[in-house]
């Protein structure tokens, strides 16, 4: 494979993880436009650990993801009081706080706005990235088939009723927010150690919006939707290179067209039902 193809595949893997990080809170009805912030935390924490404290990559990634997850839980609690567009605004603000933090603080460690150089002590191969992708895909696959997956969908559909049938929605929503943040943090760590250079500007609002678009376009009701959306967003612009200057405009039109044709995303739960892995069908036959 050429290095161009390798770069593309690595970017795809990271984008799939980022899509899952947005899908997870969204599956419980929470829209986060601040996941670039969690990604930044994972990227900076893991890079600081490997560069300045000579950690090996695996523990650095885990710690980076874990710290992002803990901060996600802390953000998740006040976020419980907000819904819809208000939650989106609050998480957007959070993302900006994180970006500005790494712009202005910890400069001796991270270089601030000049960027964090010299992460390259550890070579990161593409199989590292895809190993994590496979792990998270398996995790979300089993989660979606479990009772928790069903409980998440119930909470997404109707919180009041969910609580009245015995679901602890505070615990569920905060966990989902934290799990999403952990996923974004791991993706950030992989990003830093694949591209070997990060700067706060990488983790701006536009990056967060991209992640949300993956999920909205691919389909919000199943994690496969985010995976497909990430695939389209990463690969399709490459196939449209022949359009030259019109590439961006054409891509924009394509998004609008898709939203008109399939407002709930490309993959819906009905499509998965038909397929062999339909959850719970096996259980019906006693």
């Amino acid at each position: 494979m050429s290095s161009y193809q390798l770069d593309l595949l690595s970017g795809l893997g990271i984008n799939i993880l980022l899509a899952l990080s947005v899908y997870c809170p969204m599956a419980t009805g929470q829209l986060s436009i601040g996941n670039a912030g969690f990604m930044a935390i994972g990227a900076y924490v893991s890079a600081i650990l490997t560069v300045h404290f000579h950690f090996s990559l695996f523990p650095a990634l885990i710690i980076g993801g874990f710290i992002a997850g803990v901060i996600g839980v802390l953000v998740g609690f006040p976020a419980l009081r907000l819904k819809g567009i208000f939650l989106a605004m609050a998480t957007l603000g959070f993302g900006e706080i994180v970006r500005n933090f790494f712009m202005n603080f910890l400069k001796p460690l991270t270089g601030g706005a000049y960027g964090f150089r010299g992460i390259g002590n550890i070579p990161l191969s593409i199989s590292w990235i895809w190993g994590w992708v496979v792990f998270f895909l398996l995790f979300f696959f089993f989660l979606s088939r479990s009772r928790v997956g069903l409980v998440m969908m119930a909470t997404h559909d109707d919180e009041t009723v969910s609580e009245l049938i015995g679901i602890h929605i505070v615990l569920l929503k905060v966990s989902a927010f934290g799990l999403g943040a952990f996923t974004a943090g791991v993706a950030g760590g992989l990003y830093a150690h694949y591209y070997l250079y990060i700067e706060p500007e990488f983790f701006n609002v536009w990056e967060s919006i991209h992640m949300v678009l993956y999920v909205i376009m691919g389909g919000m009701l199943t994690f496969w939707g985010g995976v497909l959306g990430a695939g389209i967003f990463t690969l399709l612009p490459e196939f449209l290179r022949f359009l030259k200057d019109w590439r961006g405009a054409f891509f924009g039109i394509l998004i609008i067209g898709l939203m008109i044709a399939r407002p709930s995303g490309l993959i819906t739960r009905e499509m998965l039902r038909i397929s062999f892995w339909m959850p719970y069908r096996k259980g019906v036959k006693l």
Partner: protein
Amino acid sequence: MKEAPLLTLNKVSKAFGGLLAVNDLNLDVSKGYIYGLIGPNGAGKTTVFNLITGVYPCTSGSILLDGVNLTSLKPYRIARLGISRTFQTIRLFPNMTTWEHVLIGQNFLSQSKIGGILPIRKTEKMSLRAQAQEALRLLGLWEARERKAVTLPYGSQRKVEIARALAARPKLLLLDEPTAGMNVRETEEVLSALSKIHEFGITILVIEHAMRVVMGICDHIFVLNFGQKIAEGTPAEIRKNEGVLEAYLGKGE
């Protein structure tokens, strides 16, 4: 009805601003009977359900289930203690099949650790599935199990709500107008399901406007008007009660 009550409302009041929706209400519900809660529109019946299930906190008074004080508990805790309900306006999950509605009704019954991510034992799973199947068959929904619940006819949607509540194996089942909008045949089906549920030993408290239904199935009836209990007793007693007639029809000249 001499045994210790399953549910007790002790001087419960609920004010919305200046409006006293429920006023100094005392109810005793004993195990194993079907109770009716009736009254004119706006009498506070649904508010009583919302107080029992913790949707609203009581302004004053206390609510006890089997001696446990529910007054300051969150709705999910109250549900796990054994109170399930249905809703006056149907509230189903738009993305779920009928079968999934029954499974979600059982969500807190499994013994799995870490909130249900780890698989549960096969025997337990089978017994939960059997219970879910039983709930569906009881309400005649087995054939519709694979269909999205919101695409079913109106009467069947109400039955899905009852099946979802029943799947939690509650001690007390609160039904808010279970036969509203149903045709005669559907009403009969629900009534026969209710009498079977009753045979399982589940206590039922039902809000209902159709007097034929209330008088037909209830062992004991509470009558509410303007948030206060104006009468209680057997259907025969209620039928003769002048205060009740007055509340429904107005004072005669």
